[in-house]
């Protein structure tokens, strides 16, 4: 007989800092985890499809939709004029993002109308029957074309400067000037966008939306319908991946579904096809980085001057904060004594680019690492040597100020890199590789160690707030709700751990419930890696309030003092007595104690003044480093990632299993961005890589052959975050920059390591072969 249930456990199941499976793992594997498209459809449910345009830039002269309307099963067709209150869903409130194109098309694939039909199939078929007459206008597809056309910006650029970069550049013993193209990236969440709108009485509407930002969907739906926010409820239990692609991009689908649902008084589901999702939702911004770096013969940086020009697409969306964050990370982990960084958020006739894991930060870091490479190859030194020379110093060292004048107080990059250099045998393996390359004609190898320092907080200070709603029921079971959304990152699991830990109850007592604007209002997007930091603290705050009430009640009932009351595993110790948690809760109920609380949290210390380019936008930094080893084929440009070693800082991990999953997954996703994932537009501005057949994200057989991932277990967040943990969503995405640089070293071997290969990203086999060919010419 299993007696374990009768034994008193010393600890609870599922507290903080424990390896715990994802709360839905057993449902994922059984196919019983419901995504929005899996929900039963109420009788009368209609389906929507987008009518897409096929011009990059044009006036719509006329639009004949009669064939669309006549298609069997079509119930109605919506155009911009059918938006009851507003046709705009610009998240930046610049009024530059129509729900449906109104008289003017600004990118190939922009929707001009929406079809509502009895079946999804009918809606999709009908959507192809429109006859639209255009008057073509000149279009600019990329950064170069946009500049040639006058360089129109979608939003105000930013300049960060400290010291006198121009003067120090002139005085520097050596200088290198160059440029780098860094490609964009399709999110490729496995679940494409979806919205399901169910009309209610009066103005009411409920929208199930695959969104990272339910509050924004709520506001946009209310805005388009012309109803107050309190009429709109937005819900999401889980997404099949988000990665930033569902921060603002779900607004269009939700708005159209809601408008149709209210107009027709029937439920409307809107699930675009994968190709449409890829063609008409935004992606990671691609950048052209133009840099000049001044340095000395040792390799120490004196001055940096760089411009980060981004293809933003036709509207502002989040391009302002994305290009800002590129500048915030253009220092990598390095101290620039004199620096000037400028962003150039260019308007192009392409889909409006948006948030994507790292939010511009990775592009900034890639630029910084390119400059390190330039210095190393110019001096004939190992890139790691140059990196170490330029790391930020300890607090107070005089080398601790960022280009935005924030002091780096928590710097651990030196120790972290030293640990990894040793554990990964970096020096010995590098020597082996140099020897191998000296005798290998076709296959060449490369190795690189790159660091990560990533700033944590929304740079828009107001977003750094969160709420949670916690109920304790009479049976001692707990209902958890918070403003964060679950997209696979394990946020729900971690917050449940926080609550289990706070109450000292087993995690199975905590019910995790779908995110809804009706329970926690005015939430921020689950983005910027902030989900656990913000919502964990809010949940802990709610638990604290309930616990304080329980303690006050117990002190009175048991005639003791609060300091003699404590929460033990599944019990509350009151004086000498050990009361089961559920018993205390039941008694508290009968004593009319409120067993529900709304928790709240706002990140302390942070402030940022964009006009002066000064402030402390980040609460803390997360650090990491990776060593990657690759082989390349100099006849074809093909490559293989042989081995990767990662040491990453998540502070005191709330759930090491989940954190390691984020690191491994972030690495491979970042590797895809820098290697095989190529977005390709033709000269008409049509995206031709709009499906997995043409857009290649990594497969199992692309992941590193040997993949060692470790947490820096000695690290603890110096700030008072939840459990002294650190954010983990975005920082590891930057680790595979080491793959790009390892490929670069292998290419450089062809030219005797005397010239920086200037390998652009993504380093497709073609890009690698062309770099090899350049190296051959250099010989």
């Amino acid at each position, binding site marked *: 007989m299993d007696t374990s249930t009768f034994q008193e456990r010393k600890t609870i199941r599922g507290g903080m800092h424990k390896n715990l499976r994802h709360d839905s793992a057993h449902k994922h*594997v059984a196919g019983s985890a419901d995504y929005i498209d899996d929900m039963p459809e109420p009788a009368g449910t209609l389906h929507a499809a987008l009518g897409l345009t096929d011009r990059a830039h044009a006036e719509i002269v006329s639009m004949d939709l009669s064939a669309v309307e006549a298609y069997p099963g079509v119930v109605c067709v919506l155009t911009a004029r059918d938006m009851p209150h507003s046709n705009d869903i610009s998240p930046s409130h610049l009024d530059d993002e129509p729900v449906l194109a109104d008289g003017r098309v600004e990118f190939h694939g922009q929707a001009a109308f929406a079809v509502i039909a009895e079946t999804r199939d009918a809606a999709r078929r009908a959507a192809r029957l429109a006859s639209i007459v255009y008057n073509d206008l000149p279009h600019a597809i990329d950064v170069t074309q946009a500049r040639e056309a006058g360089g129109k910006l979608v939003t105000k650029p930013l300049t960060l400067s400290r010291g006198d970069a121009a003067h120090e550049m002139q005085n520097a013993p050596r200088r290198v000037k160059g440029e780098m193209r860094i490609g964009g990236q399709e999110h490729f969440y496995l679940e494409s966008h979806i919205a399901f709108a169910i009309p209610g009485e009066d103005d009411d509407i409920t929208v199930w939306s695959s969104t990272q930002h339910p509050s924004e969907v709520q506001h946009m739906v209310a805005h388009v319908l012309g109803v107050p926010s309190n009429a709109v409820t937005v819900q999401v239990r*889980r997404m099949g991946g988000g990665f930033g692609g569902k921060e603002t991009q779900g607004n269009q689908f939700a708005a159209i579904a809601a408008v149709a649902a209210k107009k027709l008084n029937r439920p409307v589901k809107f699930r675009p096809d994968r190709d449409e999702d890829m063609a008409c939702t935004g992606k990671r911004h691609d950048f052209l980085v133009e840099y000049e770096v001044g340095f000395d013969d040792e390799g120490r940086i004196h001055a940096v001057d760089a411009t980060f020009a981004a293809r933003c697409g036709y509207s502002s969306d989040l391009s302002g904060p994305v290009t800002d964050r590129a500048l915030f990370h253009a220092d990598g982990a390095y101290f620039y004594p004199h620096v000037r960084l400028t962003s150039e958020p260019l308007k192009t006739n392409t889909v409006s680019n948006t948030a994507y894991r790292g939010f511009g930060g990775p592009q900034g870091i890639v630029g910084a690492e390119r400059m390190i490479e330039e210095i190393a190859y110019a001096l004939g030194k190992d890139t790691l040597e140059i990196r170490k020379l330029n790391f930020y110093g300890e607090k107070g060292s005089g080398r601790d100020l960022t280009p935005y004048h924030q002091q780096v107080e928590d710097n651990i990059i030196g120790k972290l890199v030293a640990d990894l250099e040793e554990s990964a045998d970096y020096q010995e393996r590098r020597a082996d590789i140099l020897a191998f390359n000296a005798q290998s004609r076709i296959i060449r190898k490369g190795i690189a160690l790159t660091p990560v320092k990533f700033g944590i907080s929304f740079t828009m200070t107001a977003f750094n707030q969160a709420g949670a709603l916690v109920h304790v029921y009479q049976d001692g079971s707990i209902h958890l709700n918070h403003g964060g959304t679950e997209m696979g990152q394990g946020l729900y699991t971690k917050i449940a751990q926080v609550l289990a830990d706070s109450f000292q109850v087993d995690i199975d007592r905590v019910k995790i419930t779908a995110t809804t604007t009706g329970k926690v209002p005015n939430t921020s997007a689950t983005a910027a890696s902030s989900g656990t930091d913000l919502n964990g603290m809010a949940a802990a705050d709610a638990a604290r309030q309930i616990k304080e009430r329980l303690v006050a009640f117990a002190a009175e009932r048991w005639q003791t003092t609060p300091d003699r009351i404590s929460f033990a595993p599944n019990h509350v110790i009151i004086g000498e007595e050990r009361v089961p948690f559920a018993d205390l809760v039941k008694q508290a109920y009968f004593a009319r104690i409120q067993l529900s609380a709304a928790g709240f949290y706002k990140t302390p210390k942070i402030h940022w003044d964009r006009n002066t380019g000064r402030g402390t936008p980040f609460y803390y930094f997360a650090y990491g480093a990776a060593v990657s080893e690759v082989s390349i084929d100099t006849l074809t440009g093909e490559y293989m990632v042989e081995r990767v070693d990662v040491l990453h800082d998540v502070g005191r991990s709330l759930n090491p299993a989940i954190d390691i999953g984020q690191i491994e997954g972030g690495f491979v996703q970042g590797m895809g961005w820098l290697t095989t994932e190529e977005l390709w537009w033709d000269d008409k501005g049509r995206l031709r890589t709009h499906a997995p057949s043409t857009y290649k994200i990594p497969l199992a057989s692309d992941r590193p052959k040997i993949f060692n991932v470790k947490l820096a277990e000695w690290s603890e967040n110096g700030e008072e975050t939840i459990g002294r943990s650190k954010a983990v969503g975005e920082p590891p995405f930057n680790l595979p920059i080491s793959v790009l640089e390892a490929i670069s070293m292998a290419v450089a071997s062809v030219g005797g390591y005397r010239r920086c290969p200037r390998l652009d990203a993504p380093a497709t086999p073609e890009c690698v072969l062309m770099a090899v060919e350049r190296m051959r010419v250099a010989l």
Partner: protein
Amino acid sequence: MTSTTEIVHPSSGSIRFLLNDREIALSTVAPTATLLDFLRLERRLTGTKEGCAEGDCGACTVLVGRLVAGKLVYEGVNACIRFVGSLNATHVVTVEHLAARDGTLHPVQQAMVDYHGSQCGFCTPGFVMSLYGLWLSKDNPGRADIEKALQGNLCRCTGYEPIVRAAEAVATARPDAVFDPILKMRDRVRAFLSGLPTGETIVLGPSDARLVVPGSARALAEALAEYPGATVVAGSTDVGLWVTKQMRAINPVIFINGLADLQSITEAPDGITIGAGVTYSLAFSTLARRLPPLGKLLDRLGGDQVRNMGTIGGNIANGSPIGDTPPPLIALDATVTLRSVSGTRTLPLQDYFIAYGRQDRYPGEFVESLFVPALPADEHFAVYKISKRRDEDISALCAAFRIALSEQGLVTSARIAFGGMAGTPKRATAVEDALIGKPWTEETVTAARPAFDLDYQPLSDWRATSAYRAVTAKNLLLRFYLETSGSPAELVRFEAAE
């Protein structure tokens, strides 16, 4: 079943298959109805997900069991591009069928939980099914087997590492007594499948939405004579996209995937005859043994789901300029046999491809078989596929080299063909001429480089630029030379021993 008039009977028979533990008989089936929509919309089996609707992501992976030469074989397929009309005499197994009635997870599922193999969970049912297919078919698979089994499944969250760990764990730790739905009902499935009529032609639907499942090659010829404009569907890995993406009307449709007459592989000393309906998976062992470079190529063609559905016959019939098998088959001097009601004709495969989008196939004709002559033991043969991503990608270019050398080391014959370099798979005759009669040396190979520009003026597209294709094609000849001269230089992920 002898005259065409029988085939035009309005409707006869039904599509019969097992879905998990239920028998299904459908007497009305839209020719373009997909298995995925059938599962999700009609049966409310929503565990199977739609990720891409084009057979590339694997989120919709289900197993389809069928009798192959009397043996019950289960294979992973993409439900999104598998048509319901192609399911006659099969057993469809979805993720809902894996766990025991009491909810106890199958060991494959439990391993995915234990090793944190899911994050967002949307791709997970597909991975579970692919891993389950591997679990059924292979004892103790190694990393190479696992990666191959997962070539057709995309995950964007985990980076695959925990999924591979789960696969390894479940491979080595098989409990003795385990609940397994397929093992449990194997006898029942076999009885059901072998109890179905064989050789019967099924005709469903009104004349404007006709669906024909011919019971013999002869019935197929007759059906094509009756409907010369019909779409012949074997694996549907290409035609599936015509429906899900282009929304093309492809009626009437003739499904030949179950046609036993087209599924034989015959080995003879002078070569191999492959029926047009043989899938890549079924052809693999024979081809890999007789022509190892072709086996290597098939390892990188699609994922398991595509290889389990797609056929070499289809790869030829559709005439794609970037099909992977035509270049090596042309280099091997393969011939193709076409059949119609008026008989058969055989022609060299290289003559079959006339121009972009045009093949030497008349209305009413279908590809019946392919003959691949044996490669003389003293000839060198290699196939190189170049793509942006190593696996499950369409070639930027695909090269096949074959040469014979004299005892003096002179090139006595050369057959070189490329895909992705022209509007059709095409011979490199100028390069061949530049090699024949010359000593097989690096100097000769270098001297032959300009000849490529006479043979090919490749295009630029999203897979590669013209410049890359041109340079790489030339470099691949050097790779071939190095390989034949005993110093191979190619990246290898797993040593052959694994």
